[in-house]
């Protein structure tokens, strides 16, 4: 893990990059990184995020600034701007079930090619997907999902990069921290090594590439 400024971190992300962003309706989202993505006007992004949050909050800021060109998400109904941009074909949107979304990312992070899920069988979600039978039951083959960058928000980070999360701000952050080529983390608190007990670490240090330093 390397401590880095938010400006330097975002400067590494090219326009057109694929980014996974943690958070659920803006809760547990690395706001400082998104503010800087907007400031540096990184455009044409492929965004992988559970939802579109709301205007002005979390990944909603990326829609406010019209920086997203492709989106994989599970629900964007609470962000009218994202809805408008989708309906106006400014964004190519892939809406998928939330359990499938998280398993595809987990598969991407854990070296699996994909998973078989019952979710979506017999619905529009099955269109174009392989149906695989196991012991007489039908499942959809859902393939692994990865990104170039994961933007992750933690509660505690220690000097090595071990992470914990708080309450419902954990959500997609731990799986995303495994599924990207480069993992950039903001934390509410940076603490010395040993403050986080081994049993409480959720994301072990070697998964973290960059931690946004204070100040």
């Amino acid at each position, binding site marked *: 893990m390397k401590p880095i400024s938010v400006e330097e971190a975002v400067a590494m992300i090219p326009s057109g990059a694929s980014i996974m962003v943690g958070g*659920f*309706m*803006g*809760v*547990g989202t690395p706001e400082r990184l998104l503010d800087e993505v907007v400031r540096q006007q990184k455009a044409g992004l492929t965004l992988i995020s*559970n*939802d579109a*949050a*709301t205007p002005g909050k979390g990944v909603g800021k990326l829609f406010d600034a019209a920086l997203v060109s492709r989106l994989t*998400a*599970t*629900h*964007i*109904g*609470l962000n009218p701007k994202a*809805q408008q941009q*989708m*309906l106006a074909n400014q964004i190519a949107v892939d*809406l*998928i*079930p*939330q*359990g*499938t979304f*998280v*398993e595809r990312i*987990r598969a991407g992070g854990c070296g699996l090619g994909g998973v078989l*899920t*019952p*979710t*979506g*069988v*017999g*619905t*529009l*979600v099955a269109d174009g997907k392989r149906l695989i039978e196991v012991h007489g039951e039908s499942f959809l083959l859902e393939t692994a999902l990865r990104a170039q960058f994961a933007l992750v928000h933690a*509660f505690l980070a220690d000097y090595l990069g071990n992470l914990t*999360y*708080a*309450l*419902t*701000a*954990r*959500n*997609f*952050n*731990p*799986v995303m921290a495994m599924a990207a080529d480069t993992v950039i983390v903001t934390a509410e608190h940076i603490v010395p090594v040993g403050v986080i007990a081994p049993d409480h670490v*959720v994301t072990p240090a070697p998964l973290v590439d960059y931690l946004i330093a204070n100040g």
Partner: protein
Amino acid sequence: MDPQIIIARRVARELRSGNLVNLGIGIPTLVANYVPADLKVFFQSENGLIGTGPIPEQGMAHPLLTDAGGRPISALPGAATFDSAMSFGLIRGGHVDVTVLGGLQVDADGHLANWMIPGKMVPGMGGAMDLVSGARRVIVAMQHAAKGKSKIVAKCSLPLTSARPVDLVVTDLAVIGFARGKATLMETAPGVGVAEVMAVTEADLTIPGTVPEMKL
């Protein structure tokens, strides 16, 4: 009684001590208000919490403790938080005993449509498809009709949420089950007759010999 409260109170009677329950947004959320205090039910919020508590007192809300809509909630003693992989492992893996969801349409075979209206409402399915595929029991809580049109239809015209039929539909007029795969009138709301329910229901309903009145 307010139609939504009839529905919420009746659904609450389906919950058992020890159940893990997931409530969708809208009417389902109201169900929590009518669970008897001595019933130990675990409520899951799919953004990563078991043991959701009421809305916090003024000044006590924490920005990192919210429901799936991003609104502040509290947590009861013995609550547990987890990531989304675990949350949907619980849902898909059959560990959620009951899910209560809103509906746009339920048809005579028990199929639910509740996530999109083509050309009009395309918000995404969120967790709905996993909940209907994976929960042990799926209960739909919705008004019987909208704008004068029955929401209990012969065949869903809207895209299905799952190929798996739901177990129970509770409306402001009736409780409908799907014994032997066919919509069956189980109960009527207080003061509502069987004929009245049939008149406002598009789907063919099987009518048993006796149809008791809902206990609320």
